[in-house]
């Protein structure tokens, strides 16, 4: 898939990276996220992020994420206020705390 190939450099990061379009459709899901979520990239790409993680559909999150998806400023979600945006589990079964940044991605697509 063309979109995945151009984001390949993000596979090497130790941070989880997910790329969505303005409709929350997942375009990319890196290896770190595969590991944390126990969901393969092939199972996630093409899915709607808010369907996989319905908590993101609540006012507290959606208002801020929508703003970013419409070219607004980046949104930052701290561990102390949210603990975890995504319900990922640690090996001992407890919730994995997360610090999440949502930022617009500028891309130049060659045709």
């Amino acid at each position, binding site marked *: 898939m063309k979109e995945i190939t151009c984001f390949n450099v993000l596979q090497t990061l130790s941070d989880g990276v997910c790329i969505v379009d303005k409709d929350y459709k997942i375009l990319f899901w890196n290896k770190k996220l595969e590991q944390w979520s126990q969901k393969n990239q092939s199972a996630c790409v093409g899915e709607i992020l808010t369907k996989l993680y319905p908590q993101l559909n609540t006012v*507290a999150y959606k208002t*801020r994420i929508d703003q970013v998806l419409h*070219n607004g*400023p*980046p949104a*930052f979600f*701290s561990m*102390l*206020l949210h603990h975890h945006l995504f319900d990922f589990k640690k090996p001992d079964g407890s919730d994995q705390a997360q*610090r999440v940044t949502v930022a617009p991605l500028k891309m130049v697509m060659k045709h």
Partner: protein
Amino acid sequence: MLKPSISKYEQDLLQQMFKFAADRAEDVLAAMVEQTVNIKISDMQLIDTPSLQTLLVDTDVQASLVCMRFEGMMTGAIALLFPQDSTKVLINTLTQSSMRSYEMDVFCMGTLTEVGNIIINAVMSQFSDTSLEHVSFNLPDYVEIPAPHYPIVGDINNVVMTAKVGFNISGLHISSLLIIQLTADSLSSFFSALQAGVRR
């Protein structure tokens, strides 16, 4: 260097933008912490870069600064300054916990960055939604004062606007200071774009 000035109309326009931004931020923060939150942005002032330098660099006051740079129709930086006392009260109130000391650990820095991010984003989104002009933003920075470098202090000719931001959360009042710095040449395009947006 000319002393910066803006007209009464521009001042009123900004105050109106701040009011809408405060309402936006209030809704977001209240939904997030599930507490009653009131935010007021008031007492807007126009100062020059040396005055900002004095405010930040030549002060002994310990404080935290959440800052974000932007570029486009307007170019500059925006920041929210939390004095030490406010920081502690704000975090304790929002998280409904008690902080051991002012020694800010990574969790508290993150919380403050998020609160600053919400206020700053509400103000910047209000500006860009009104003007319909595209602005690019950097990721927010967190700096503790005093610091060797301030991302908010720029060129000597830049124009700086400040306003008080008051938070009322569950009956507690917390004060902070909003700082917006614009390059001298983007000040007029900023107001032109805002005025055009309001007329639409």
